[in-house]
């Protein structure tokens, strides 16, 4: 009997040697005359265990081995791993690992569990149940379900998704669009990538439901060029979805049309800002547009457009399939549902943790993350990407929800958390924030374009010991100007890491001996 063996094709797993492990497994099985069926799944998100190999037992339970390298393969066969044999790398049933047991995986329920290239496997694991439900509802009822669920934009802005969809649905237009923002540029984030590589049909289904709700017939996934693996996974899934008539002129036999394609970005962080992304989709420089009008009213090619992040859209099938209230039952305060948190940087057990809002930072960093990778004390974490504030260790009891973080002057953003140990130089990180803004500014507004460059210069002068106190005041005033005067979130938020570094780690801004 042939055994199902899972070795991820997720880019992160591949970066640690999963491809070589898969090839070696095939070769060793052939050499031993053992029947083995290899599934290239997404990652479970426990990156410290990658490459994570799983074997499906006769009882249907998947048992994990990891991290596996090519030189472990012969000994795995010797230990009869296909029958669940004992081996130093054996971890037991995957979903019984403490890391997974406490998680509440809704949006990521299938990631790492299914074959991301197979519609049939997707459907077998509950896929397209949401679309089936949506096809039996009036457009207004779909919008109402999303509103009731409390889902807010997971890209970072946290705007209520249902309200956005309602605005688009109310517009009279000959053409409406669904534009998925897959320009996941924040350092410390990889949830979009994992989802697109591990369960691309969830995104396709979510976008199809959005199209039904607002009356759109064309969708685009704006994918960053840095994600070639996600691109291949999406292209494979799109072709399969067309083949199975889940996309095209007659979606699931409903008589409704929805076409969907991938458009590649070209390495511009600013294109994660929605109006800049629309400019880029139209083939132009990614310069931000002045709002109003909102994209929901005048978006792509001047038509009403839903712009949502990958995770937002991929959460919709679960909401439709299981009910809006079931989703809203998770969470805390006004942050409803679950959040896929990405633990990154200097952390022992980095990866993806999906939990209801309301987990404390401390629980996340120490219970899930196991402390720093270097073994040194964690000094600070940056939450929400390069525009997010640095949170000092003294505030690690803060809960992870939109309002609680806003309460300490931080923001959740796309849910990425980058960990730094006590060797970090915060003046240098502040300088980097300004430098990054200067590099990525679209150039349309002066506070961002000029302010970021002046910011780098002022920090350099402080560190060179030139008139320290006066220049620190100047830096604070400059941050204020950028926050108040920039056209979009890039210039408007790039000062947040700088301001938080000044507030919590002012001692790092002393003149440095050259």
């Amino acid at each position, binding site marked *: 009997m042939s055994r199902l063996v899972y070795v991820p094709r997720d880019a992160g797993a591949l970066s640690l040697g999963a491809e070589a492990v898969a090839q070696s497994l095939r070769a060793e099985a052939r050499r031993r005359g053992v029947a083995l069926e290899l599934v290239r799944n997404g990652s479970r998100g426990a990156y410290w265990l990658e490459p994570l190999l799983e074997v499906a037992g006769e009882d249907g339970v998947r048992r994990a081995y990891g991290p596996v390298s090519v030189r472990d393969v012969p000994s795995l066969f010797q230990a009869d791993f296909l029958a669940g044999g004992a081996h130093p790398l054996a971890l037991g049933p995957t979903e019984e690992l403490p890391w997974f047991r406490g998680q509440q995986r809704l949006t990521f329920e299938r990631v790492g569990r299914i074959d991301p290239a197979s519609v049939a496997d997707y459907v077998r694991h509950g896929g397209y149940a949401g679309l089936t439900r949506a096809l039996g509802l009036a457009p207004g009822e779909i919008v109402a379900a999303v509103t009731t669920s409390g889902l807010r934009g997971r890209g970072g802005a946290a705007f209520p998704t249902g309200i956005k969809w309602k605005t688009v649905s109310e517009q009279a237009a000959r053409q409406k669009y669904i534009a998925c923002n897959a320009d996941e540029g924040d350092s410390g984030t*990889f949830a979009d990538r994992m989802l697109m590589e591990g369960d691309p049909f969830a995104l396709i289904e979510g976008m199809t439901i959005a199209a039904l709700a607002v009356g759109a017939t064309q969708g685009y996934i704006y994918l960053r060029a840095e994600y070639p693996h996600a691109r291949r996974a999406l292209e494979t899934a799109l072709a399969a979805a067309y083949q199975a008539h889940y996309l095209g002129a007659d979606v699931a036999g409903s008589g409704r049309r929805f076409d969907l394609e991938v458009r590649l970005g*070209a*390495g511009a962080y600013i294109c994660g800002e929605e109006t800049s992304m629309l400019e880029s989709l139209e*083939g132009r420089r990614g310069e931000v547009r002045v709002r109003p009008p909102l994209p929901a009213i005048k978006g792509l090619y001047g038509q009403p457009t839903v712009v949502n992040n990958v995770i937002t859209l991929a959460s919709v099938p679960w909401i439709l399939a299981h009910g809006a209230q079931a989703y809203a039952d998770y969470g805390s305060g006004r942050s409803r549902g679950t959040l896929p948190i990405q633990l990154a*940087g200097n952390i022992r057990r980095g990866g993806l943790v999906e939990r209801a809002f309301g987990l404390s930072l401390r629980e996340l960093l120490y219970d899930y993350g196991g402390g720093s990778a270097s073994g040194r004390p964690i000094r600070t974490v940056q939450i929400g990407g390069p525009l997010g504030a640095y949170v000092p260790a003294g505030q690690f009891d803060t809960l992870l929800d939109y309002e609680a973080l806003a309460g300490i002057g931080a923001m959740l953003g796309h849910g990425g958390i980058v960990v730094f140990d006590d060797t970090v130089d915060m003046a240098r990180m502040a300088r980097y924030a300004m430098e990054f803004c200067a590099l990525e500014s679209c150039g349309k507004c002066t506070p961002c374009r000029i302010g970021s460059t002046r910011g780098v210069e002022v920090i350099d002068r402080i560190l060179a010991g030139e008139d320290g106190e006066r220049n620190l005041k100047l830096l604070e005033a400059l941050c204020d100007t950028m926050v108040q005067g920039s056209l979009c979130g890039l210039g408007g938020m790039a000062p947040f890491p700088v301001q938080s570094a000044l507030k919590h780690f002012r001692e790092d801004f002393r003149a440095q001996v050259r």
Partner: protein
Amino acid sequence: MKTLAAQELATVRRIIEECKGRPGPLIELLHAIQAELGFIPPEAVPVVAEGLNLSRAEVHGVVTFYHFFRRARPGRSTVSLCQAEACQSMGAAALSEHARQRLGVGFHETTADGRYTLEPVYCLGNCACSPAAMIDGELYGRLTPERFDALLAEDATSS
């Protein structure tokens, strides 16, 4: 002004024909040119502008706005090292310095033998396995200077 070689011109013209009926085709078209030629030759700009009925300034503006598009022929391999925060927290600066020393070039430069182009990149989405790099589309995680050297050595023996 220099013009494109006949073969490159034919490639650019073919790509224009393939893309021009599509909505907002310029960026897709530039991706296609770069995929085939390795870069966007400056001499291709007027050809693309005419083909899409845009001004040269518009095409030039798009080519220069996006970091991904290059205007000079790159080395046979492109090594992109992540410089973003998560990788910084795990020693990206030291790794980058090692790579510069080892290859003898700075960022955005190509080695004298035309073998490697070194590029900075701002996040590869591999932030739980920092520091990360991409070499010719292949992703690498938890890179150390030793592992970096080993990869270059493998590359030298395989080609």
